[in-house]
């Protein structure tokens, strides 16, 4: 819990975003989210070229007993998806903040990042869910 990467931004719905500094961002789900879901068995990703809206459903992560929608933290166009996840969804379980990334976006408005949570604020969200 304490080792949330501080360089990332977070959404309440448990996605993380990394600003790549070139107008694009990388998106995944948090360590906490993968723990809640358990062993992932399938990941459904958007298509490259899809245009996403901030807060819109854009992907699905499935475990044996649950399926969760993933919401795009920012608006933008999908430039790349993590094709490795098709055969190895467990990568998200193993490395949610690294190799388990899901897709990259060319952000429509990079300032939308400011509306997201920093690591401390997201830690509080996790805390409040405990109760």
């Amino acid at each position, binding site marked *: 819990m304490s080792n949330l990467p501080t360089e990332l931004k977070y959404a309440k719905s448990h996605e993380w975003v990394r600003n790549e500094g070139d107008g694009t961002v990388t998106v995944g789900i948090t360590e906490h989210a993968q723990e809640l879901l358990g*062993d992932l*068995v*399938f990941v459904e990703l958007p298509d490259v070229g899809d245009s996403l809206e901030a807060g819109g459903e854009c992907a699905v992560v499935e*475990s*044996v*007993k649950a399926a969760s929608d993933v919401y795009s933290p920012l608006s933008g166009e999908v430039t790349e998806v993590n094709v490795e996840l098709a055969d190895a*969804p*467990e990568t998200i379980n193993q490395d949610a903040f690294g190799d388990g990334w899901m897709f990259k976006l060319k952000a429509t408005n990079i300032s939308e990042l400011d509306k997201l949570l920093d690591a401390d604020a997201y830690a509080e969200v996790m805390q409040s869910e405990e109760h």
Partner: protein
Amino acid sequence: MMLLIQEQSKQGRRAVAQAPLQKAEITDIPEQFRRRRSANLPEVSEMQVVRHYTRLSQRNFSIDTQFYPLGSCTMKYNPRGANEMAMLAGFLARHPEAPESHSQGFMACLHDLQEMLKELTGMQAVSLSPAAGAQGEFAGVAMIRAYHDERGDTGRNEILVPDAAHGTNPASAVMCGYKTREIPTGADGDVDVEALKAVVGPQTAGIMLTNPSTLGVFDRGILEIARLVHDAGGLLYYDGANLNAILGKVRPGDMGFDVIHMNLHKTFSTPHGGGGPGSGPVGVSERLVPYLPVPMVTRDGDEYHWLTETECPRSIGRLSAFAGNAGVLLRAYAYARMLGREGMSRVAEYSTLNANYMFKMLQEAGFEAAFPERRATHEFIITLRKQAKERGVNTMDFAKRLLDYGFHAPTTYFPLLVPECLLIEPTETEDKGTLDAFIQAMRTIQDEVNTDGELVKGAPHTLPVKRLDDVRAARELDLAWNVSAED
């Protein structure tokens, strides 16, 4: 491990006495339409088949062999008589398109059943055609939609669904083109009426309710809920999954419901068959009568006639090619005749007695009730959150250990809002001795949790297979036997 029937096949074995002895030559179907290679189906003898499937059957738990207290599924005894009567040669041989002149006996059964279900539910009319509960739900919501649409009231785009509802409810609403909105449950297990008030309005097409709810309690606020939804112009849908609890005691029509589906494979004791067939007749209040799905049977003097799209032009139409699961309807009808008027309310009485007895005894044994202040209906919930937290033994472990003691597990992890829950429904056909044995098994497992948690976590130990790897099944999909993939 048992071989697959495919693995017992030997090429060239011809033990087929069940098909025509010769193969007629086909000369008038051109080659382009013909199959080039025979399908790779098993080549086995009749004895091999009989032995294989008899032995497979012995690897099942069933009502006929075990207590099966699966909550919200009403696993009661399926009378053999009802099966035999439905499988009379005359019924089995009747073609679905047979003319009315050769259908009067069958149609009389359906008509009688329609009438009995009307009376039992307090609705104005019944259609027997939906093939299962979920199809009944679809029919019900489609009728709600047809009603609003025909009145030009097209702004209603939302169906309200309590958070304790069966998953089929929101799924059915979506299939009819509606959005769903969840209504929370109050701490006492009843629908949170204040929350309902906040969201019901001109966009509300209807609400889907199960009462008694899946929480094993009768919603005492039902009349208030009905008033609120009706005042807003919405209709009330009754999910009949738990009708067994109130049969002959309260009628959904009297509670104010506009449409209801019944699960005949639950309340009317038709077999669950390893997952079906079910049957999901729908009943409606006056204003929805024109929209009922076809076909239905009507009576004119001594003659029975079909009602189809022609006679019912405003109907939502037919939902299966013919008349739904007719053979299931015949079983339900036979069962209903054997119960009779006096037997109907006994179903509710003794299923409720059994549930409350178990509810009490399990609490005395130290199990935590989800709603201890409430009277159980025909089912109730206990939660094992304490065991999970303190001992790391979860509900699934408990359920699997029950299998070792010869009991089918209750429903686990449903409803979703009670953590680590077991939903227990004993039904009226179980005797006290069986209930006591189950309660004793629960006590024993609780002791095991305290002394040897690993034993419980490793369960089952006595079944044909150990705990199965669900994750592997989903990640490495193997959905069909393929000869080339073997070895």
